[in-house]
């Protein structure tokens, strides 16, 4: 496999954060929750609110690794007209104003498979997507999308989990690029939280096997938790808690109430603030 040239945005972002000694903050929002107009507004405001990298959820009818919050976001996105083509259009719109903040699409394989892997990769690269997180593609299925993605210059960010044992770590890391996403709990999104020391041990363990940055997600909900993760990992991901803010600011018909975008961005600002002051523990 020959890896294609990437956009370089993810590498540049981690490099500049490394210089100032701070971890990255990565918020997750579901595309079209509750509609594309609102998602795009939030998206445009996220870098200013402290997002270093942005994860955009690609709706799938059967999200087997997601808890109630993101499942509900997916159903709202379905009503909001979510489609892969429209999500790529939204990224294009975002890129007109921001050419530096990395964008990662997160979801499941089937919508990409049905779109057509090669067409999808070409369209996603052109739209300005920097990386993919595809939950249901373990290393055993690398030939499906991971290898073609790397060849196309698209980062393929793999999940490592508490069940990833020593035997699997090399396979999990082999074709990972951009960064590694450590799933802090054996569970689904937005439910239980792991204790800090267990995460610390796991991140240190991963660091022994890779030079890539390690992000931590699943069960991170508060500014304090984000700050804690910022001390022991290279990035903190918050999804369900932010999606909950969106849900709380919908009217009875499921439409965005006035002020939803600001509420979401204020929450992101609050979450990311913890990282500005937190000194990173030496990881190596």
């Amino acid at each position: 496999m020959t890896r294609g040239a990437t956009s370089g945005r993810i590498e540049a972002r981690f490099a500049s954060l490394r210089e100032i000694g701070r971890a990255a903050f990565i918020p997750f929002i579901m595309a079209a929750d509750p509609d594309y107009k609102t998602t795009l507004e939030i998206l445009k405001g996220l870098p200013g609110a402290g997002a270093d990298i942005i994860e955009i959820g690609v709706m799938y009818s059967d999200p087997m690794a997601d808890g109630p919050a993101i499942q509900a976001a997916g159903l709202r996105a379905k009503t909001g007209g979510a489609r892969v083509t429209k999500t790529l259009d939204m990224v294009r719109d975002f890129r007109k104003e921001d050419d530096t903040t990395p964008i990662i699409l997160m979801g499941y394989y089937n919508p990409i498979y049905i779109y057509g892997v090669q067409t999808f990769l070409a369209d996603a690269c052109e739209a300005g997507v920097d990386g993919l997180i595809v939950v249901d593609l373990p290393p055993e299925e690398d030939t499906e999308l991971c290898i073609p993605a790397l060849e196309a210059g698209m980062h393929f960010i793999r999940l490592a989990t508490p069940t990833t044992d020593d035997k699997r770590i090399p396979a999990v890391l082999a074709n990972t690029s951009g960064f590694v996403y450590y799933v802090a709990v054996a569970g689904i999104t937005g439910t239980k939280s792991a204790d800090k020391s267990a995460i610390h041990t796991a991140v240190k363990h991963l660091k022994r096997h890779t030079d890539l940055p390690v992000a931590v997600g699943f069960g991170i909900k508060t500014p304090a938790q984000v700050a804690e993760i910022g001390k022991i990992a290279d990035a903190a991901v918050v999804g369900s808690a932010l999606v909950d803010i969106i849900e709380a600011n919908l009217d009875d018909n499921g439409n965005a109430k006035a002020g939803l975008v600001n509420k979401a961005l204020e929450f992101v600002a609050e979450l990311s603030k913890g990282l500005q002051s937190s000194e990173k523990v030496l990881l190596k």
Partner: protein
Amino acid sequence: MRIIPLMNTPNTYRTGPDEFGHFGIFGGRYVAETLMPLILEVERAYDAAKADPSFQAELDQFLAQYVGRPSPLYFAERLTEYFGGAKIYFKRDELNHTGAHKINNCMGQILLARRMGKKRIIAETGAGQHGVATATVCARFGLECVVYMGATDIERQAPNVFRMKLLGAKVVPVTSGTATLKDAMNDALRDWVSNVNDTYYLIGTVAGPHPYPTMVRDFQAVIGSEAREQILAAEGRLPDSLVACIGGGSNAMGLFHPFLDDTQIRIIGVEAAGHGIESGKHAASLTGGKPGVLHGNRTYLLQDDDGQILDAHSISAGLDYPGIGPEHSWLNDSGRVEYVSVRDDEALEMFQLCSSLEGIIPALEPSHALAHIKKIAADLPAEHLMIMNMCGRGDKDVFTVADALGVKL
């Protein structure tokens, strides 16, 4: 030396899958990383069990004494006369303990879970037959049992819900997504991801990530192996055709697999066409779907052009699934097995006909197979031997059927 190119027709249809769980392009292991080590553990444990004669001996004993195997192969004389063509045999898997073929697989997997030291069993169920069979074996071996069932299905299958509770299972209503079988499977997978240490996921059909499609097939293949011996004993030769209904496809796979390499035998799988394929309200993944990835494997799925999975519809809750086992998808594409579909109303008619002619109330699922037999039997000669899998009894369906016929109970 020149290497002889592979021919398009395989020498055997029975060696699949490959070591990665692929049947051609179908099958595979499309699951979250959290589950991967667990699935590999199940695969290792199953391989070890298969190689251990004491495992098969234990399974055989329970199948004989607890399940009631072998099930008879019965000449359906009056139905044969009525159709006036092929000689029709029923493989009577509706006579098994719990009233369907589901327990064959549950007994195999529960013995495996015990070998693996698992204490907590989870399962998904649609109509409740697999849930009841799982709850039954859990009761027998004193294991905790949690069954995920769509809220919609819980309403329409109240007797089976009560049965599971009597057997000591906890039935969890699934309200996510469309609150049906596919969502029950999603929630069971979410449970497994969250309880990785003590839990075993007992999948009820020939779907899911490798090794499930293979393992469930192997446990169900007892149906076909028995039928083969029984027809040889009764007729002195192999049958000319096999017919079985297909939701996920475990009863059909179980009957078909031991006969796949007897290529002179015509094999027919019958999907549920619901209100008719053209209505869009059906459960015929092969006839009306296309390949995609769901629940850990690639297979034919009912889906839209954005890759979103669509709702299935069938009067038979056991066939109401938007996918099909990956091996069926492969057998379809390779042309070895013919797949057809019949509508709700055609199945309902046969439900009544079989009851009154044979004194056997069939489940709505095999009523679909009967409805296809009705279409072809008359044109076949009297010496044509046909075996249909009577995979479940219809007691569970009397409320649904009464409702469909406008009868108030």
